[in-house]
């Protein structure tokens, strides 16, 4: 029942053998050893496991890996440039010292990157609406909003 699954992750093609029903999250974490996407609920309710699928912020805990073989997948790690430079959204999260425990921040950054691709100068309400799928238990949301506005300003000076 295992079969070959080819995924385009962070600009690289990976062919692995897996149960094709395996949710993308477990392939990314276990086969590709990526830490960015986190297991939070396995139900698509919290956003911790988000990745960019063709630029769209998407929970990876429910979609079968075999269903995204033709898509481009970017994880938190893939936002970092080859020379180690952080994506402006990541940089803004560091500058605002946004996280507490940090577990949800993957989804926050991924959602923010997707938002800023569509809307270069989002208002606070736009940010709140876009990040509605992302839960944070530590209560860092005010800082997340500040970080996204900071990132928007740095990307579109």
């Amino acid at each position, binding site marked *: 029942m295992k079969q070959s699954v080819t995924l385009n992750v962070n600009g690289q093609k990976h062919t692995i053998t*897996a*149960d094709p*029903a*395996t*949710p993308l999250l*477990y392939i990314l*974490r*276990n086969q590709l*050893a*990526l*830490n*960015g996407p*986190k*297991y*939070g*609920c*396995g*139900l698509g*309710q*919290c956003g*911790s496991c988000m990745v960019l699928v063709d630029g769209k912020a998407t929970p990876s805990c429910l979609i079968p890996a075999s269903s995204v073989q033709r898509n481009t997948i970017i*994880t*938190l*790690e893939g936002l*970092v440039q080859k020379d180690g430079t*952080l994506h402006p959204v*990541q940089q803004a*999260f*560091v500058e605002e*010292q*946004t*996280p*507490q*425990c*940090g*577990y*949800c*921040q*993957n989804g926050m*950054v991924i959602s923010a990157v997707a938002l800023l691709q569509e809307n270069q100068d989002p208002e606070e309400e736009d*940010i*709140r*609406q876009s*990040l*509605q799928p*992302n*839960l*944070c*238990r*530590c*209560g*860092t*949301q*005010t*800082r997340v*909003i500040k970080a996204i506005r900071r990132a928007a300003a740095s990307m579109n000076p």
Partner: protein
Amino acid sequence: MKPTSSLPVSRRNFLKTTGCLTIGFPLLSSCWSATGEVPVQEDLPGSLRAYPKINAWLEVLDDGKVRVLTGKLELGQGIRTAVAQMAAEELYMEMDQVEVVVAETGRTPNEGYTAGSASVENSAIAVRYAAAAAREKLLALAAEKLSANPAQLQLKNGVVMEGNQQLTFAEILEGRQIEDEVRMPVRLKPKKEYRWVGKAVHRPDIETMIRGEQVYVQDLRFPGMVHARVVHPPAYEATLVKFEEEAVKEAVPDVLKVVANGSFLGVIAADEYQAIRAAEALRKQAQWSTPTALPSETSLQEHLQALPVTSEQVEDKGNTAPSDKGTTVKATYFKPYIMHGAIGPSCAVALYDNGKLDIWSHSQGVYPLREAIQKMLGLAIEQIHIKGVPGSGCYGHNGADDAAAEAALLAMAYPGKHVRLQWSREDEHGWEPYGSAMQMAMEAQLDAAGKIQHWRCTLWSDSHSTRPGGDPGNLVTAHYLEKPFPRQSAGYLGGGYRNSQPYYSIPNLRIDAHFFEGPLRVSSLRSLGAYANIFAIESFMDELAEKAGKDPLTFRLDHQEDPRAIAVIRKLQEMTKDQKTADHEGMGYAFSRYKNEDSYCAVAALVAVDTQNGGVRVKNMWAAIDAGEVINLDGIKNQTEGGMIQSASWTLKEEVQFDKQHVSSLDWNSYPMLRFSEVPSVEVAVIARPEEPPVGAGEAAQGPSSAAIANAVYRACGKRVRQLPIKPEKLI
């Protein structure tokens, strides 16, 4: 930037003989004594009392950097950074010259639990004194080595210099560590020279999180590691009747092992998704008996009221007999069970190999967990090693210890491989120990001038700590084993009356606490009983202010004598003085001092109430906080911001539900918390008190936030909600 600090050292002979660790006041150089900052305390502070040796806290590395050891775990509160700041400060180093090892048995000091906002008070303070004592010793040794006049020595970035000679800390020690005990008094760096302490120092771990580097226990990977899932019973009192191992293996051929021990059930597979499938298959066909039903038919408040109690008089001051003069006001408040709700469910990795059990866990107390697991498994203590690795924020005693115990059971049944157990969302929601439901009955008497003369509070609560504490009976899994371990005691009851005494000047005061054993599993949740008690006190203060015809903040100030309390209330007034409220909007305020001896915190909330559907939107919240000496300014702000938002979620939304079988709040739909569109914008002002001891800030805001919101709701729509959460149906 401050210029490089040059450290004056005098009396070489003295240094030679005593290593500077026992410098008495009369021997101090004028330069040091003139600072007036030499502590007068004689007892060792914080966790140094149990671990007085310098090398218990601090090691010098070969490259001249230092490693700090703390028995506390990083939970997102920034303790790693706070202890590094302390060491870098006293050793005149850069922050990146200090690395930190967190809680690990056999490696770090045993500091019990990372809990109660006590990490700075105990661990960071121990590191401060150990680092200061280490500096003195290093300078003394360097003076000898360089045959230098100690007064000429300079210390910068971990290098001791004299003229053109210099030595790193590693060169000074030549491979040894400083095994001396810290003896008081210890010369501390003058606070006016501080570069790191009190500043908004960036947490270095934040960038690793944002890069997606390995940070959490969930991220650990070992060669050949296998994956496990557990199948928890369908009810607390359920017992396993039968299950068919072969059917599971047939459904999921990749299963490596089904582990059953009494009513404990788990599965192991090489692949994580196959472990999930196997657990589902097992859950479907396992048969259980569930004799006792939960009381889902009656209202929780009524049910709890009818339970037998043990009682304790908490306070009896002045004349508490009711007087026939004055105005008597009564009100009863209620808080339901709420959950920790970590975003990442609990996880642990365990390896049993050659009679040795290694566990990686995000437990808040690796040493007490080791003792509990040792007793549960019948191993010797030296056979077990537990390394603390950060997990998702826990906010108290959640499933971390239980997951570690279960991973240990699974690893013992499948030796030689690292077994990674990940709890599901349902496991965490359904099996974590909740924060107890509480009821607070308040009664007070106002005199003709509007001052409170009598105050009486009677509260009902379950335990607020059933942490393992070395007792396997507190590990949930141990109840279900073939040889079960029953719970030994109700745990720490004092948490129920934490902050039950109002922090106001009231001449006659009586507090009684009644403890029941409720239907749900409970333990420590951030701030313990303080959240409910402060909700009650500070809601009641507004009710009393209204009866007295006073403005709520003026009424509080009329009953306040502590200048630090007055200062945070005044600061909050200043922060919110320009706020205007529209129709159906209201501002609410509240104040408390956490544990009545730690951080002072005053909170304001601006809410809007939709009078059609009862919906409450908390638009803004403000806090003024005084946590004594500030260690990391941004850490205090972040904790306080988060405390307000988390409390707003508890206050507006959260209530653990159960049916007659078990908890029915099993995901984020059945147990909703605040989402982005509902979260208030928050702002924090910190009043720094460099002359006061530093105290934890992570639990100061939760209590006053709840009452500030309830008071604001009252102002917005005239409805006084005394039963949390403040749901829309209570406002229409």
